[in-house]
């Protein structure tokens, strides 16, 4: 932790109208998993400045991040190379202005930053202020807008309303065909397209599947057929290579995934889990946020509640946060690992366990969400669930895991024939 910095030369100059600073962000339009370089030039030498990012979300909230910098003797600040002396991030953090975004003071609680309309970019304004004091009352010296996109150029987005199937299909440009990915989200429900859009930008036909509307997870059987149907729609699509289809999922979606890859169509995987959630196992923390970890722990003790992972025959990558306060991800992974090893299937399993990382492992540079609003399906009331994780390690985990997920997908869906050569 850095202590206060003493300046040997006190410069009261700041910037003037006659020497405007020059701010550049490269690239100014990027995909959300791409890094950028923020550079400021033409500054007075060895002077304090604050760089701040500001995003106005689709929900109408303002998110910000900021770092405190000191210009060098050539009047330059480079976020990629220089140290932040504090702010919402510190140290050498080229992307700190994005991953440390948080709701501005005075915002509503339990917010989560999630883009719904993926056909437009996130607009982030990067501004430079004089000094290290509170910048809120000051005007920026210079600022620049940068676009962050989930969809690359030429990606096609098709809404799926084929009978009962609900989702969005993303197809990369080019002749195809491409490997396919079925994208399943978690207990929050609704249709979230951004991961699928991003995966399509990386060369996959991706189907983001909605399987229940927000807040409507009922304790009825959701038929296995729905998911198998989705899998077949994807597999049979003319732009998809039928024997190169994978599934990516988060949270509740993982249960479905495991079921899909392990079981045949005869057995229904019902979300009976919701009926038998032992609500007395939900703890509440000091902020009155709900911790659901122990619910999962209890379930792990119930063999009838578990998918028989010994039946899995495809490669499986498990990504876990060690500080997941919502699901006992690590213990679950241990359990899966044990079962698969015993069945001689251990070679199919890869797991990545990230320390001090919470439940919501999102694409890189997404702001860390330690707790979020969710509608309780049982009582329809809004509560705040704790997800866990500390911002910096969690952000590093998002960055690292995304690259490893992409290389896992590429290895198995793009290149596996090379192993045969």
């Amino acid at each position, binding site marked *: 932790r850095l202590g206060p910095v003493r300046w040997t030369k006190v410069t009261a100059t700041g910037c003037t109208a006659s020497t*405007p600073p020059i701010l550049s962000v490269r690239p100014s339009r990027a995909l959300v998993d791409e890094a950028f370089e923020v550079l400021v030039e033409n500054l007075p030498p060895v002077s304090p400045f604050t760089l701040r990012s500001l995003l106005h979300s689709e929900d109408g909230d303002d998110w910000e991040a900021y770092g405190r910098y000191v210009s060098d003797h050539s009047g330059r600040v480079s976020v990629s190379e220089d140290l932040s002396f504090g702010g919402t991030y510190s140290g050498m953090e080229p992307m700190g202005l994005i991953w440390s975004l948080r709701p501005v003071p005075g915002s509503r609680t339990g917010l989560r930053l999630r883009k719904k309309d993926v056909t437009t970019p996130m607009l982030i304004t990067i501004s430079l202020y*004089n000094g290290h004091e509170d910048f809120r009352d000051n005007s920026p010296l210079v600022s620049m807008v940068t676009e962050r996109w989930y969809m690359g150029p030429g990606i096609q987005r098709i809404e799926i309303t084929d009978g009962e199937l609900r989702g969005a299909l993303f197809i990369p440009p080019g002749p195809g065909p491409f490997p396919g990915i079925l994208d399943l989200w978690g207990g929050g429900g609704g249709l979230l397209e951004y991961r699928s859009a991003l995966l399509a930008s990386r060369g996959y036909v991706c189907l983001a599947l909605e399987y229940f509307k927000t807040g409507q997870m009922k304790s009825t059987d959701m038929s296995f057929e729905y998911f198998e149907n989705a899998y077949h729609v994807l597999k049979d699509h003319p732009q998809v290579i039928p024997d190169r289809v994978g599934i990516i999922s988060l949270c509740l979606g993982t249960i479905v995934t495991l079921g899909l890859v392990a079981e045949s169509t005869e057995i229904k995987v019902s979300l009976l889990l919701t009926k038998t959630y032992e609500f007395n196992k939900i703890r509440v923390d000091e902020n009155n946020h709900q911790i659901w970890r122990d619910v999962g722990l209890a379930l792990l003790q119930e063999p009838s509640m578990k998918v028989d992972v010994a039946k899995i025959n495809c490669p499986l990558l498990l990504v876990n946060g060690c500080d997941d306060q919502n699901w006992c991800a690590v213990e679950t992974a241990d359990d899966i690992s044990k079962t698969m090893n015993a069945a001689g299937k251990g070679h199919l399993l890869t797991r990545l366990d990230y320390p001090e990382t919470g439940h919501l492992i999102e694409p890189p540079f997404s702001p860390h969400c330690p707790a979020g609003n969710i509608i309780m399906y049982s009582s329809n009331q809004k509560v705040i669930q704790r997800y866990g994780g500390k911002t910096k390690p969690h952000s590093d985990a998002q960055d690292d895991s995304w690259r490893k997920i992409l290389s896992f997908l590429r290895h198995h869906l793009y290149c596996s024939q090379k192993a045969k050569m």
Partner: protein
Amino acid sequence: MDEKRCCVTLSVQPSRGLVDEKFVILVQNSFPSSLLTIYAHHQCEDGYSWHAFAHYTSDATGAVNVSEDCSTGGTYSGVEAMGLLWSLKPVPGSKPGLRMRKKNVQAPMVVTISVYSGHLTEGFEDQVPLAGVEVERWYMAPGVRRIPVTEDGLTATLFLPSGPGPFPGLLDLWGGGGQLVEYRAALLASHGIASMAIDYLTCKYTMETGKIVEQDYFEMAYKFLQKHPKVLGSRIAMLGLSLGTSVILKMAVHSQIMKLSCAVCVSGSHVQPMDGFLKEMVDRYKNWGSDRFTKDNKVVWRDLLLPIPTDLSLKVDVGKLQCPLMLIVGEDDQNWCPHESAMDMKGMMERAGNNHLLTLLSYPNAGHLIEPPYMPHTRVSNYRDVLSQQKRMVLWGGQTLEHSRAQEDAWRKLLVFLRKNLYSGVKSGSLSLSNL
């Protein structure tokens, strides 16, 4: 199904870039040492198709990196990161004399880049590529604002950079073809300069009255920028190509109102009747006499101002210039004689003792149309000169490879020159204040 095909990946980074930004094209997962053709296709706003292609051989890992590997044939050869853009040509069978110029700068130029198996030179439409991506090339950075200007009798468009400002300003002039050409001003605004593209030949005033504008039109444009709340009135530059250069040099030396921070003159000359302005130039052009034609019937106008006169009533006395001047000239310019003019200007400034203000960039084998980088070189095109009312197939000159290199080098140096003269605290006596 061809097993090979599903493996090959093609990526272009950045997929959305400014037109003067480089990109990296990467092919991966092809068979090692395989013959590949990388192909670029663009349909311009006028509906014409342009294409470029290059032949590569993948390395031992099955990869091709266009920034590092050598093209062995196609519309360019050698190691050329941006060759697929600057070597774009109209597809075979196109109308002759085409020139690619973006009209709507608020939308990107979209280029499709594909990779084919083998070394192809034609028939791309009949083959299925191994992979293809779309790339966007933008003249406007995010946050740049486009503002049409009609006040004070002007026909112009102002581009303001992203941010609170105020910003240094620039007046952007094109040549004898007239129209309101916005793309260079939009790009300069993306680099932090409030730039105003001006139509001075086919402007509203001229279309309505039939008269050509006088000096006060440009002074009006300068004053508009000077008093604009988002512009630093003491930091205004001018940039011009061809006939635009004539205007700039005249104004820089003779205008009492314009105090330019600097001027950039591309492919132009200081030769003009000093007892008049644009109207007098028209009269002079009408007395040009017969055009000179090449063997294939392209008109060459470069001789018209030659030899450079010694008479000071026939050229701007640049010895009186008081602001930094950058001259960018192509030595293969077949339309004007900027190289000879530049040499003459250099001599005048040396004799006057103000040549420390001069930066001269002279490019062998570059032609007349020295534009922002990576745009296709136009050696010949259909052209209608507004002043002389002549329409011809004009030879601009330049050899594509050297011309493209010149465009890249000149643009980079132009930006550094503008930055130095518009952004640095060169004016002495500027006090330091706290926050703006």
